[in-house]
C-alpha cells in the first residue's frame, strides 16, 4: 500500500458534523406531491361524483336509478343501436385503414403521399363539420353522391345519411385515418424478411398474407378494432347530427337529450354515463392486455431494416385508384362540399345554374352573427391555455414517471392515462354534477371548460412528453445537477429545451383537438362562454348552413396554417443535429 492510501479508519478522525441535515422535504418530493394532488383532483373527482350521483336518490344510497333509467321506453333499442353503430363503424374503419396501411408500407403502389395527407387532414377537420358536409353528400333527397348514383342508375347503392347504415359509414370514414396510423406503425415494425422467407418457402402471396402477415399484426389489429369500437361508443357528433333526426338513439345522444330536456333528467344522464364509462374502460383494459401480450410478438430487432416493397404487378393501378378514391372521399369531397356550401346564400345541389348565385356574402356575415367574435376569442384562449397547461404539466409528470426515483412513480402515468377511457360527454356530465354544487364559482365560466379540456387531453400530452423525454439521456440532466443547478434550473434549462420537439408537437395536437372539442363543451358552455364548435352546432340547429360552412372553412384554413407554421418552426426549435 502506498503512502497515498490509508487503511480505512486508521487516519481519518471522527466525522465532522454534517453541515445540514435533511429535514425539509426534497424539491422532487414537493413537485411529486403537487402533481399527484392536481392529477387526482382532475381525474378522480369526476369519476367519484358521477358514481355517487348515479347511486344515490333522495333517500340515500340505492340502485333505483339504474332500474328507472333502463325502464324508459326505447332503452333496449338504444343499447342495440349503440353496439351496432360502434361495431359497424369499427368494421368500416378497420377494413379501410388496415388495407391502406398494408398497401402503403408493403407494396410499391404509387400515390402513397396522398395517403399521408389523408391520414393527417381528418385530424384537423372538426368532426361536426365532417358530419355536416356528409349530410350534403349522402342524405336521401339532397345528397350529391346519391344524386349521382341515381343519375347513373345505381339506385341500389344509395345510402341515406340519416339512418343507421349512413351513420356507420360516415363515422367509419372519419375513424379510418386513426386505424391507418395504428396499422401503419404495426406493419412498419414487423420484419419483412418474415414474409420474404415465406414466399421463398413456396407460399403464394395470398397464403403469405393469411399465414404470416396477418398473424404477425394480429395483436395490433385487435387493438385497433377495440379502440375503434370504444371511439364509436363515445362518438357524439354523428349520432347527434344524423341519429337524432332519424330517431336512432345511442348512449351519447340519449345523455345529451336527458340533459337538454325539461325537467333535466340527471339520474338518467348519470346512469347512462356510468354504463358508457364501464364499457369504454372495459374496452381499453382489454386493449392494454392485448398490447402487453403483443410484446411477445415484437419482431423489432436492434438492426434497422428497410421494408422492401412487394411488387403488386398488374394490381398496381387498381390499388392506386383505391387510394385515389379514398383520398377523394375522406378528404377532398367533404372539404369541397364545405367550400361550396359557404359560397351559396342557401344550399343548392352543385350545378351550372347554381354557380350563378355564388358569392362571398356568407363570409362577411360571419361576424355579424351574435356571439361569433366572442366564440373565436374563447376558443383561442382555451386552446392556447389548455395546450400550454397540458404540455407543461405533462412534461413534469413524464419526468416524474421516467426519471425520478420516487416510489410508485409508474402510478402517475396510470392516473394521467385514465381520461382516455372517459368519453367527453361523460366528463361533461360529471363536471356539471361537481360544479353545480361546488363552492368554487366556476360553473358557466371558461374555467370549467378549461378543466374539461385539460382532463381530456392529458393522456395525449403525456404520450408526447414521455416519448420525447425517453430520448433525453439521463446523463445530460445529471451533468446539470453536477454543475450546481437545482431541480428547477436543470428542468427548465436542460430537460425542457431538449424535450422541445415533442412538447411542441403535443402542443399543436392539443391546440387542434381543443378547438374541435364539442362533446364536453356542449354540456358546459353558457351564453357568454360559447366556443366555435358550439356556435357551429347552433348554426346547424338553426339551419344557417351558409354561415356555418363559411365559419368552418375559416376554421379549417386557420388550423392548417397553424400546423404548417409550427412544423416549419419545429425544425428550428430544439436540438440541432450534428
Amino acid at each position, binding site marked *: *500500500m*502506498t503512502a497515498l492510501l490509508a487503511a*480505512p479508519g486508521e487516519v481519518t478522525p471522527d466525522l465532522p458534523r454534517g453541515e445540514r441535515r*435533511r429535514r425539509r422535504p426534497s424539491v422532487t418530493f414537493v413537485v411529486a406531491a403537487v402533481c399527484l394532488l392536481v392529477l387526482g383532483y382532475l381525474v378522480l373527482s369526476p369519476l367519484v361524483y358521477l358514481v355517487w350521483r348515479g347511486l344515490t336518490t333522495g333517500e340515500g344510497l340505492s340502485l333505483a336509478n339504474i332500474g328507472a333509467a333502463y325502464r324508459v321506453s326505447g332503452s333496449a333499442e338504444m343499447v342495440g343501436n349503440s353496439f351496432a353503430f360502434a361495431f359497424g363503424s369499427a368494421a368500416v374503419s378497420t377494413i379501410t385503414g388496415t388495407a391502406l396501411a398494408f398497401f402503403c408500407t408493403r407494396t410499391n403502389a404509387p400515390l402513397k403521399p396522398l395517403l399521408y395527407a389523408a391520414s393527417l387532414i381528418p385530424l384537423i377537420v372538426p368532426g361536426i363539420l365532417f358530419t355536416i358536409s356528409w349530410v350534403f353528400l349522402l342524405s336521401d333527397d339532397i345528397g350529391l353522391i346519391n344524386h349521382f348514383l341515381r343519375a347513373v342508375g345505381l339506385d341500389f347503392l344509395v345510402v341515406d345519411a340519416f339512418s343507421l347504415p349512413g351513420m356507420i359509414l360516415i363515422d367509419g370514414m372519419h375513424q379510418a385515418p386513426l386505424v391507418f396510423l395504428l396499422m401503419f406503425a404495426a406493419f412498419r415494425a414487423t420484419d419483412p424478411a418474415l414474409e420474404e422467407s415465406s414466399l421463398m418457402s413456396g407460399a403464394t402471396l395470398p397464403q403469405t398474407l393469411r399465414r404470416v402477415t396477418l398473424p404477425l399484426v394480429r395483436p395490433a389489429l385487435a387493438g385497433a378494432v377495440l379502440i375503434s369500437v370504444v371511439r364509436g361508443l363515445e362518438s357524439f357528433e354523428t349520432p347527434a347530427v344524423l341519429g337524432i333526426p332519424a330517431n336512432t338513439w345511442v348512449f351519447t345522444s340519449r345523455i345529451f337529450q336527458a340533459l337538454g330536456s325539461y325537467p333535466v333528467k340527471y339520474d338518467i344522464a348519470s346512469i347512462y354515463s356510468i354504463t358508457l364509462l364501464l364499457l369504454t374502460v372495459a374496452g381499453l383494459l382489454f386493449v392494454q392486455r392485448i398490447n402487453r401480450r403483443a410484446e411477445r410478438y415484437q419482431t423489432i430487432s436492434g438492426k434497422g431494416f428497410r421494408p422492401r416493397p412487394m411488387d403488386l404487378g398488374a394490381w398496381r393501378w387498381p390499388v392506386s385508384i383505391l387510394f385515389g378514391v379514398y383520398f377523394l372521399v375522406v378528404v377532398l369531397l367533404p372539404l369541397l362540399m364545405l367550400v361550396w356550401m359557404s359560397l351559396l346564400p342557401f344550399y343548392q345541389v352543385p350545378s351550372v345554374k347554381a354557380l350563378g348565385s355564388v358569392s362571398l356574402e356568407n363570409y362577411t356575415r360571419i361576424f355579424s352573427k351574435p356571439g361569433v367574435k366572442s366564440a373565436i376569442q374563447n376558443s383561442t384562449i382555451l386552446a392556447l391555455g389548455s395546450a400550454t397547461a397540458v404540455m407543461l404539466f405533462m412534461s413534469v409528470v413524464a419526468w416524474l414517471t421516467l426519471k425520478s426515483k420516487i416510489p410508485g412513480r409508474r402510478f402517475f402515468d396510470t392516473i394521467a392515462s385514465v381520461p382516455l377511457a372517459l368519453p367527453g360527454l361523460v366528463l361533461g356530465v360529471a363536471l356539471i354534477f361537481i360544479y353545480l354544487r361546488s363552492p368554487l364559482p366556476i360553473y358557466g365560466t371558461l374555467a370549467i371548460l378549461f378543466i374539461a379540456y385539460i382532463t381530456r387531453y392529458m393522456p395525449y400530452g403525456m404520450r408526447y412528453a414521455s416519448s420525447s423525454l425517453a430520448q433525453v439521456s439521463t*446523463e*445530460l440532466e445529471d451533468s*446539470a445537477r453536477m*454543475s*450546481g443547478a437545482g431541480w428547477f434550473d436543470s428542468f427548465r434549462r436542460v430537460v425542457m429545451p431538449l424535450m422541445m420537439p415533442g412538447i411542441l408537437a403535443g402542443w399543436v395536437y392539443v391546440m387542434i383537438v381543443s378547438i374541435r372539442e364539442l362533446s364536453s363543451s356542449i354540456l358546459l358552455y353558457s351564453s357568454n362562454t360559447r366556443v366555435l364548435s358550439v356556435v357551429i352546432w347552433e348554426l346547424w340547429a338553426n339551419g344557417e348552413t351558409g354561415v356555418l360552412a363559411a365559419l368552418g372553412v375559416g376554421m379549417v384554413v386557420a388550423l392548417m396554417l397553424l400546423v404548417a407554421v409550427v412544423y416549419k418552426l419545429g425544425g428550428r426549435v430544439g436540438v*440541432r443535429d450534428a
Partner: protein
Amino acid sequence: MLQVRDLCKTFQDHESKAGRVYAVDHVSFTVEEGKFFTLLGPSGCGKTTTLRCIAGLEHPDGGDIVVADRVLYSGKQKVVVSPNDRNLGMVFQSYAIWPHMNVFDNVAFPLRVGKRRRTPKAQVRERVERALNVVELGHLAGRFATKLSGGQQQRLALARALVIEPSLLLLDEPLSNLDAKLRESLRFELKRLQREQGITTVYVTHDQSEALSMSNSVAVMQEGRISQIGDPFSIYLNPENPFVADFVGSTNFIEGVVVGRQDDGWVVRTPNGPIVVSAVMGVQENDRCMVSIRPEHIEVLGDGSDSGTNCFSGEVAARLFTGESMVYRITLPHGELNCRTSAELRFASGKPVTVHLPVKHAIALSPKDAPVRAPEEAAVG
C-alpha cells in the same frame, strides 16, 4: 481529501433470493490532495455506481463520503448533500454535452445556475475563457456543441467540469468512446492537465493500461468490492490475488502445493515438477496455491539449452505474430503456457523448446478467488 468508508449501494433484483444485489459492497478508500486515483475493474463491477454515489447522483445505502473535511454523505448521521451543492466536477462517459447550447454556454452554465448564479457577467466570461483555453478550445467558443468532434466534446466536458474549480474531479470512462489513437494522445493530455491544475481526481476505467499509465494509485474492483489497492507498480508486479493478476495484464496460472522455503523464495510442487517462486500471498506451507507468471516474463529458449531451476521442456503448439512481439502457446507435459517474446525470436510450431520461469517474477497466490476461465484456457495443472 476524499474519504470513502464502507460505502454500500444495493439495487433491486428480482432474480436474486434477497431481492437486492450489492452493486457496491463496503467499499473504502482514501485519496490524498492532488492525486490521481483510479477505480479499475471489469464491466458491471460497480465502478460507475461508486462514482455516482460520490457525485450524489445515487443514494447509497450506507457508509460515509467526506470531501475536504466536509461530510457529503453519512448513513449513520443521516447527512445527504444534494449533487448540486457538492461542488464536484464530473465528466460522463457520454460527455453529456447539451446539444441546445453552444460551446461557451455549455461551459458558462455552471456559473449561471444555483449558488453561483450571481456571478458577474464579466467574471463568467473570463472564467469560461480560461477554462476553454486550458483545454485548448478557446477558438471554438461560438460553435454549436454538436458540431464538435469526439475528442473536442471530451475536452469541452472537461472544461465544463473544471470551470467551477471543483474540489474533486470525477471522470467516468471519459476516453472509452474515442478511437485508439485519440485515446492514447488524450491520455497524456488529461494527465498533464490534472497535474498542472493540481486537481484531485477519481477516474473510472476498465482499461488496465489507462489505469496503470495515468494513476498515482489504483483500486481494482471485483463484484462490488475492492480487490486490491496500490500504486500501479505494485498492482502489476505484486498482485495479491489471482483476480488482480489476471485482470491487470494477463497471466499464466499453474496449480500446485506450497512445499516450503528455499533460500529467499518458496518451493511449489506442481505436476510438471517443482517451481521456485519469489513470494507467496495468502497461502502457507502445505496449502494449495496458484503460481502466477506473466507471459512477457517467461523466457523461451532453444531445446535442451538449460535444465536449471524453473526450466521445463515443452513444445510450441501455436504462435501469433502481433507486430511488436511474438506470442507462443507452449505445451508442457501437463498443461500449457502463454509466452510473449521479442519478435526476433522465432520458433516454428511443433518445435521442442525449453521455457524458463524467472524466480523473481513468479509468485504463489491463494486459489480462492481465482477467475473462472473457459476450459481451453484453464490453468496449467
